[in-house]
């Protein structure tokens, strides 16, 4: 485990932290958004933020696909799951996301055949094992996960698995970042870019952030030292007056991404004109649906779904958390009415959600020495 240990070495971590301290201007407050939920999780799991000076604030972005699924989409999934003869499959955390009348887990308890899978290929396997049942996969995730769904749909089509279909809620990372940057209530100094999304799309799609908004973005790996190193790179850009996309995770991420994956995505999916994000509203060209060539495998065409927009519960402040406007503990129901066991909002569902990360790692408030 030499590879991983190097990236978790505490003394190296302290050395990088000292470098961070040397790069910050006293009296200036820095806000850096980590886009990806995996980074949020690592930051609180390893106490990365404890190594930062008080004037470097990490803001948690919209990179947890479970957290951004709106209630109406959950209702659509439940409506399909309740149909007779359907086996409804999804990733584990998706089962606990609340819709307007409960979650998929509750639908399962009430008799629907809802099954957790680890990949779309697992769902296809279930379809092949149950030719007399309709098997539906609830596809969620950013560009890291979408190729897996795309390849499974290609396989289903090639093998003629007619009882398999997919309700597609895949989303793309660039449009919500642009929406956040346009948001007047958010001031950010830079971004820690999503490492594995970039493995697929590359670092190039993020170039609009320095070009159009004058902010640095550093694509980063997920180990504590990766994250600290990416913060050094962001602060160094700010100190030197540069605004660029840099790739801290070059050991895995090619600057132009995985071209084969991008080709498959282009074949199987097309952009929806609009897609609703929980707390962020409708964002143009931010969601994927099946292309015409794969329409026969589209569960939204095969089954009747309500397709209704449902407002979030009044108490829910996930939108503000997702935009980094408030910290999780500032939500009125954090840790009281809303807990990982009984989530009101989606940010409390996945362990990568900002609220769950704060709750699980005891971050009920944050007070640090001011530099």
């Amino acid at each position, binding site marked *: 485990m030499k590879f991983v240990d190097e990236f978790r070495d505490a003394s190296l971590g302290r050395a990088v932290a000292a470098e961070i301290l040397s790069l910050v201007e006293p009296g200036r407050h820095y806000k850096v958004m980590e886009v990806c939920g*995996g980074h949020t999780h690592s930051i609180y799991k390893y106490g990365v933020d404890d190594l930062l000076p008080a004037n470097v604030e990490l803001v948690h972005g919209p990179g947890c696909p479970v957290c951004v699924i709106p209630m109406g989409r959950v209702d659509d999934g439940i409506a399909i799951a309740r149909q007779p003869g359907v086996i409804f499959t999804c990733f584990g955390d998706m089962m606990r996301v609340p819709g307007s009348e409960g979650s998929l887990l509750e639908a399962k308890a009430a008799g629907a055949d809802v099954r957790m899978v680890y990949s779309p290929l697992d769902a296809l396997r279930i379809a092949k094992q149950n030719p007399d049942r309709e098997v539906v996969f609830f596809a969620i995730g950013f560009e890291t996960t979408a190729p897996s769904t795309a390849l499974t749909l290609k396989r289903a089509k090639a093998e003629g698995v007619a009882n398999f279909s997919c309700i597609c809620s895949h989303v793309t990372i660039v449009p919500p970042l642009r929406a956040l940057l346009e948001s007047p209530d958010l001031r950010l100094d830079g971004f820690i870019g999503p490492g594995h999304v970039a493995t697929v799309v590359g670092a190039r799609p993020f170039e609009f952030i320095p070009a159009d908004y004058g902010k640095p973005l550093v694509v980063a790996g997920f180990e504590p030292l990766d994250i600290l190193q990416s913060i050094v790179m962001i602060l160094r850009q700010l100190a030197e007056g540069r605004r660029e996309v840099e790739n801290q995770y070059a050991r895995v991420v090619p600057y132009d991404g995985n071209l084969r994956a991008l080709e498959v995505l282009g074949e199987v999916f097309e952009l929806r004109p609009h897609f609703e994000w929980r707390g962020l509203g409708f964002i143009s060209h931010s969601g994927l649906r099946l292309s015409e060539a794969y329409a026969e495998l589209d569960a939204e065409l095969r089954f009747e779904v309500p397709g209704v927009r449902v407002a979030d519960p009044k108490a829910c402040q996930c939108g503000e958390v997702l935009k980094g406007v408030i910290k999780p503990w500032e939500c009125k129901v954090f840790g009281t009415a809303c807990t990982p066991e009984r989530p009101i909002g989606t940010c409390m569902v996945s362990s*990568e959600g900002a609220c769950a990360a704060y709750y699980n790692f005891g971050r009920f408030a944050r007070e640090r020495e001011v530099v």
Partner: protein
Amino acid sequence: MTPSPAPSYACTGEHCITCSDEGVPMIVLGAARGGLALCADQEGRTHTVETTLLEAAPVGGRVLVHADVAIAALPGELGR
């Protein structure tokens, strides 16, 4: 840097694979057939992995896997 204990309620282990943007390093154990190869993770668990997105996935090679699809070839030793 010592990790805090993993959340006890988690239904799928420590991570949600989509939300954590997860990539699991694996080693290729068997040559791909029909685009699928047998791979093993760091704990020795075996998985059938789609390798068609890579130019090559030679036996003994290391790959980064997300939701049973290899999305990148990895250099050197295993890591997350």
